[in-house]
């Protein structure tokens, strides 16, 4: 069980370190990096390569945005299986619904509770 935590920490940390390297050494804006992560997750998920990483690293692979891309793909796969071609349009948002709603809710909570300060 300790190994679960350790791998989550290592894999999650690695994904974040890649992001930080992109910020420090390239001209990519944070927005572009985040979008690239989602797209990378979609591609890896579509190829079937991301699920094993999630199985192995748990939250360390599911929490970073690559995990979100993966959820989009899994949602589409499931929807296509259930409803046919229309699933291409409906599946992504359905699969990601929980994550998106949580993001909006927690963002709202943070905005209500905290006041921004200068750096």
């Amino acid at each position, binding site marked *: 069980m300790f190994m679960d935590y350790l791998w989550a920490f290592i894999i999650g940390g690695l994904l974040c370190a890649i992001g930080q390297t992109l*910020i*420090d050494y390239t*001209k990519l804006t*944070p927005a572009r990096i985040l979008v690239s992560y989602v797209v990378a997750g979609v591609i890896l998920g579509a190829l079937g390569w991301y699920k094993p990483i999630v199985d192995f690293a748990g939250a360390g692979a599911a929490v970073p945005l690559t995990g979100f891309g993966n959820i989009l793909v899994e949602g589409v796969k499931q929807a296509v299986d259930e409803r046919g071609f229309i699933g291409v349009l409906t599946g992504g948002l359905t699969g990601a619904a929980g994550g998106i709603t949580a993001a909006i809710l927690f963002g709202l909570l943070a*905005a209500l509770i905290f006041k*921004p*300060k*200068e*750096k």
Partner: protein
Amino acid sequence: MAKKITRNTFIMENPPTIHSFSSTVGKKEGDGPLGTLFDEVSADAYFGQKTWEQGESELMKRTVLRAISKGGLAPGDIDYMFAGDLLNQCITSTYGLRDLNIPFLGIYGACSTMSEGLLLASLLTDCGVGGNVAAVTSSHFCTAERQFRFPLSYGAVRTPTAQWTCTASGAVVVSPKTVSPFIRAVTIGKIVDLGVADANNMGAAMAPAAAYVIKTFLQDTAMEPSDFDAIITGDLGTVGSKLLVELLRGDGIDISKCHRDCGVMMFDLETQDVHAGGSGCGCSASVLCGYFLPKIRAGEMKNILFCATGALMSTTASQQGESIPSVSHAVFISAESRMSGN
């Protein structure tokens, strides 16, 4: 009346004086090497207001009122004022100064605004069009983040090399009295754009504009860098400053011994984690009013050339792939109203 030497350089006939001046800064600037020299350091980035934009307006208003009262004047004694800032439609200036009932001329020069305001005030005064004329500008870290990058509430990580916009304001009152410091001559700069598009390297984008106006001023007035205790730029940072010295060296002008950059002076680059250095209209304005003008009054400096530099892009232009055009104006400030011996 000011004499037109060349197309854009004017020598004052009766050099107007900087009658009074004042500076206000925020906490980070107050913690910097010049912290004790400013009239006010505010620990509260909101300046007692509800939003940062309102806070910056309050910052600018406090600074100009203090400059006016330090000169033994009241707002009613100020004939008109020049003001500008970094926000869309210059709302810092308009909302900050709306209660003062002083005739208002809004200007925009980005971070070169202090030079522009000072230049306009002194030209008009020497031409008899003005008694007491104020020039004020400000910038604020939090409003600039919202204007140019992301609102702070978004929680974005800043690129390590991005400029640190100073929370600061500087204000001067120019009048036709005959006391030091005097404004002796000015050169109106032109927009220079050498195609630098990297907003994380603004110093490099602005150095050519500063090089143009410094070279033009020195050539037009037949002065040398050695005539000056300091040739000052606003916010070129360490990288932009090196580039400026090199550009001028290529024209046979060596300013390496007297060049000072307000953005480099404002913060301790080692300990305050501001990477490229300070920037913003308020950076050059507050360092001028907090550091350089008092030195001239105290007799520690005699001649300075104040060339605040401004980057004239907007987020829209940058998103459309445009480069960053810049402008800089030169203002020659001296403890003497004439060259000694004249």
